[in-house]
């Protein structure tokens, strides 16, 4: 994967070199093809808290350099997540509250060669029990005076997952390949839309290493109600508590449509995603935002999002097990306690504001505040029937020439 990222960067650099030679042949000095460098920088703090006793604080910094005339840009971002959790999944395994820090960084480089735009990106995420590396490339082509822009993308990821303190040799890992194809098209002077398809193919260890699944005697499992308490589960479950186990391959598909419509001082954005995978999970996600300019410096927006999904084919609220004549437990081959593999719906409602700072309307410093509240209803899960969460971001952004 590192070789893939390096190769993509080399291709972009060579392509840039080729274009520079072309410029000189045209008789135009290189400086005529490049403008002043623009620099962007931002810092933000995001917070998350939910009724399952999970709290996350995430400070981040980001920066970028670009030349709008030449058409290239480079961006980087670094974020730290500090997670504190005492969720029902932890308490139900008689574990204590834990705290963990995740570090994540990403970078990208994009360039334009006439109507063709190419991009390369890479990222990593690291925490005591998880490591993720990824790299990818994108290409898009402006056609018919930029009224049609088809695009493709590909990325590869490698993830290692284990338990804190467990030697790395015993960690599980999986590979993922993501492919993307789509088209952005102008509908009218004030309307633009896009359609894209995504395929994600995961191979390897896809289970959750910390999850242990309660199993129940045959005939008892159907009597365990949704939202059953830890106490009820512990009183009725069998002794074995096997670890989470899911298929080691997953093919995931998504079809997404986006629409943007601009009035004189407001914009409506509508997104719809339809999703399916070969684990039997189906989902729909609808996202809408209405941005309203209140004067030249302040933009506000309400935001609404709705997500609903069915459960994976092997999802059970309560799994059954029984003893074989040999005395061994016969456990279900696939079992999971990951509620995001079960049927659920989530409704999110929020708002945001973006304020340009300074008395000069040409100054380019912004303050952004965004806050959302989400309610998730688990339709067929142990321990939890619903979870309420709030998350927000406060950001400071600057653009410098």
């Amino acid at each position, binding site marked *: 994967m590192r070789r893939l990222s390096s190769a993509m960067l080399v291709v972009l650099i060579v392509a840039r070199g080729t274009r520079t030679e072309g410029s000189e042949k045209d008789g135009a000095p290189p400086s005529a093809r490049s403008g002043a460098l623009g620099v962007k920088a931002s810092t*933000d703090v995001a917070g998350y808290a939910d009724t399952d006793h999970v709290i996350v604080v995430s400070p981040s910094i980001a920066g970028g350099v670009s030349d709008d005339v030449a058409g290239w840009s480079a961006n980087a971002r670094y974020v730290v997540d500090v997670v504190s959790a005492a969720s029902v999944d932890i308490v139900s395994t008689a574990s204590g509250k834990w705290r963990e820090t995740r570090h994540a960084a990403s970078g990208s480089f994009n360039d334009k060669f006439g109507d063709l735009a190419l991009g390369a990106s890479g990222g990593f995420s690291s925490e005591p029990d998880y490591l993720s590396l990824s790299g990818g490339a994108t290409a898009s082509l402006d056609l018919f005076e930029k009224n049609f822009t088809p695009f493709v993308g590909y990325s590869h990821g490698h993830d290692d997952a284990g338990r804190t303190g467990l030697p790395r040799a015993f960690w599980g890992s999986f590979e993922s390949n993501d492919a993307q194809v789509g088209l952005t098209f102008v509908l009218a*002077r004030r309307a*633009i839309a896009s359609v894209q398809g995504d395929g994600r193919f995961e191979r390897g260890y896809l289970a959750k290493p910390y999850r242990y699944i309660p199993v129940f005697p045959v005939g008892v499992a159907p009597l365990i109600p949704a939202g059953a308490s830890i106490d009820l589960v512990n009183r009725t479950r069998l002794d074995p508590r096997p670890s989470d186990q899911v298929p080691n391959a997953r093919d995931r598909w998504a079809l997404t449509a986006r629409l943007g419509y601009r009035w004189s001082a407001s914009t409506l954005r509508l997104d719809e995603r339809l999703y399916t995978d070969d684990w039997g999970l189906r989902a729909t996600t609808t996202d809408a935002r209405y941005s309203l300019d209140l004067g030249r410096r302040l933009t506000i927006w309400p935001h609404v999002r709705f997500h609903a999904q069915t459960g994976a084919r092997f999802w059970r609220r309560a799994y059954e097990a029984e003893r074989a004549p040999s005395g061994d437990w016969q456990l279900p081959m696939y079992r999971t306690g990951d509620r995001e593999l079960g049927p659920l719906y989530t409704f999110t409602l929020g708002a945001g504001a973006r304020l340009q700072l300074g008395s000069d309307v040409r100054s380019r410093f912004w303050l952004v505040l965004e806050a959302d509240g989400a309610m998730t209803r688990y339709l067929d899960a142990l321990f939890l029937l619903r979870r309420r969460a709030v*998350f927000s971001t406060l950001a400071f952004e600057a653009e410098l020439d």
Partner: protein
Amino acid sequence: MMRSFVAALALPLLGASIGCATVKPYERGALAHPTMLLGDMSRTAASHVYAIHEGATGGGTGAEGGCGCN
């Protein structure tokens, strides 16, 4: 599943090819507004929350284009 997916993707793409207007560069003031970029509307932290809360994936914008600007 691959065939169904390709068919589901091809249909709207075909419709887009037939039903679109040709807008000249000088008519694109509204399209060039920053809020009209068809990238993911969510900030990074919110996207991370959605990725964890939802069992679905996809729809991110590795490639962006078609804003009518640059």
